[in-house]
């Protein structure tokens, strides 16, 4: 075990996989000479050369399509999209091609493609640079969508994603890049499609992923001091969604709060609340509480920006609501 950052976990895994398999290549804007906008690919161009680490022009639709086509012929491209906001110009390729090619053509070719991209946003990045679209990808059959919250999961899931023969959308978070955690030194993978109970508890289940898992774990720690025992389920994968793990937890605690950084309506928390009421209805002592972003294009001004995103405090409030049975009021 070594303690490393989330960024180091990603960077070292990319290096190891480039080393392991000559068919793996990295492609994206500014990942080479610039060393990566968020330095995830630092040093890799120097180590592996421009054939394996490809600086792409600003043409996301084009190069995502190129990566899909190359994957159909057996390469294993790992594409970086600088932030998830910029994938909208390429989403047609992801959804109309990558997700469908294996199924639509009767299983004749595989698309072993990984698209890595940070989602969400803190720090006043404003309306077009702070969005979350993982729910859109999670909606699409044929894709796999993962969103690790720790360096351990980042490493294990990135390995799994690169070795997987289907297109995987790998969701990162700017705010997690500098967080630290222990990671085994030997080769390991974290299976796609499997959630993890990151902290056991008995009063309430909090279901989260990515940065919100970190928030949930902090909150759980704080509430433990108040005598409230919070179980934290970290989804890790949004598609496939590990319903059994979520449901087992809720059946134990009888109360659930679901949290995500995206917008409230039609976001990830909608699916989570729907799933829980569906499969654990008789076990629920109170309605599932959702915590998510305010439904506005993220404003730039500091206070507004902070207010629009879910926080530890908004999670604590929701936990109190679910414990004391307070009802929502949509007015």
């Amino acid at each position, binding site marked *: 075990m070594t303690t490393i950052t989330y960024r180091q976990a990603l960077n070292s895994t990319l290096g190891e996989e480039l080393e392991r398999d000559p068919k793996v*290549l990295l492609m994206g804007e500014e990942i080479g000479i610039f060393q990566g906008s968020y330095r995830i690919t630092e040093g890799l161009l120097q180590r592996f050369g421009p*054939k394996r680490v*490809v600086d*792409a*022009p600003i*043409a996301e*639709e*084009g*190069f*995502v*399509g*190129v*990566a*899909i*086509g*190359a*994957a*159909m*012929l*057996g*390469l294993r491209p790992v594409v970086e999209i600088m932030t998830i906001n910029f994938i909208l110009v390429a989403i*047609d*390729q992801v959804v*109309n*091609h990558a997700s469908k*090619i*294996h*199924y*639509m*053509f*009767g*299983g*004749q*070719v*595989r*698309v*072993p493609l990984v698209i890595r991209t940070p989602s969400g946003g803190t720090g006043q990045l404003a309306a077009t640079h702070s969005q979350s679209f993982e729910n859109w990808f999670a909606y699409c*059959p*044929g894709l*796999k969508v993962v969103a690790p919250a720790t360096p351990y999961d980042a490493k294990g899931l990135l390995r799994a994603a690169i070795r*997987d*023969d*289907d297109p995987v959308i790998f969701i990162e978070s700017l705010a997690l890049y500098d967080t630290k955690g222990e990671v085994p030194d030997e080769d390991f993978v974290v*299976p*796609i*499609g*499997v959630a993890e109970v990151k902290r056991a508890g008995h009063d309430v289940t909090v279901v989260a992923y990515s940065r919100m898992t970190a928030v949930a774990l902090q909150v759980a720690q704080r509430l433990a001091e108040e005598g409230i025992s919070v179980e934290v389920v970290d989804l890790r*994968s949004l598609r*496939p*969604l*590990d*319903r*059994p793990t979520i449901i087992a937890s809720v059946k134990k605690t009888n109360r659930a709060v679901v949290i995500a950084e995206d917008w409230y309506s039609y976001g990830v928390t909608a699916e989570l609340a729907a799933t829980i009421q569906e499969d654990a209805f008789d076990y629920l002592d109170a309605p599932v509480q959702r915590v998510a972003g305010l439904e506005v294009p993220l404003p730039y001004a500091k206070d507004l920006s902070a207010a629009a995103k879910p926080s530890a405090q908004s999670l604590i409030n929701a936990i109190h609501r679910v414990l004391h049975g307070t009802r929502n009021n949509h007015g």
Partner: protein
Amino acid sequence: MTKPALDNHTALSAAQVAELRHYYYQMVLMRRFEERTNEMYVKAKIGGYCHLNLGEEATIVGLMAALKPEDYIFTNYREHGYILARGVAPGPIMAELFGRETGVSGGRGGSMHLFDVSKGFMGGYAIVGGQVPLAVGAAYALRYQEQPGVVVAQMGDASTNIGAFYESLNLAKLWKCPVLFFIVNNGYGMGSTVEMGSSEPDLWKKGASFRVHGEQVDGTDVLAVRDAVRRLRDHAEATGEPAILDVVSFRFRGHSVIDADRYRDAEEVRQGREQHDPLRHYATWLQDHALADDAWFATLAEQVEREVQEAIDFANAGPDPKIEDIFTYMYASPVPNTPGPEAARRLL
């Protein structure tokens, strides 16, 4: 045909004669396949959207004649003829149109999504222009792995107006991907003319902003198409230089089988079919060069008739995919918690 490609046919080997005749066979096969496809659509044997290659036979056969086994082809939704001329048996193609398990895509794809990886026929895509970056990617993979071959990105004239095409031209040139941008210029994107959609209606010039070479060729002349493709293909393979080929042809019918083609002048269409019929042109040429006679044509017609009927019979005989197999092919690498048969049971 503008220029007879053959001056001294006495010098032809038997194999060469056979090949020239084979082009005609492929063109007739395509013609009859599409005519009967239309009939099958009307009989509701085929559903969804269905686009025919009638009028484009020389374009397609000329292209395929120039390609090598190591080449790959990505097309749009108007692709029955391409997979046929690439050498895939008519039966499994028709079976796909019928939605059978025995179809080339297991009945999952249908008319717009034909596929046969064993022949390098990589689909059948229905988002305009979307196949073009994929083709560049395949060419990229060839280069990366230092393999021979080139990739054809087939598309229609009206598809040259979408961003994906331009981004592809840039990437292909920049990254030295051996791609042939094969523009089937049938003059129309549904009801729109080339001039309505492209500020540069000389489509072969559309590489100008990217330093990509372009040429135009008469798409009703099978030999001209073959020779142009051969040249550009070999150059691309040798150098990694992509190129555009603007192949001018005439669309015999409406955009799809359900389009009544009302926006085109009936007389213009009638004349067009007469003047630009690639089969008629090539038949005359074969006769003029004494490469085929009436008896040969008659025998061929019968043979093709039979083959297409056999394809229809094959399609008819094929089983429908079973509903319990609806999740088959969902993922190549299975993972836990994937919606599967239980989900089917539960929702149905």
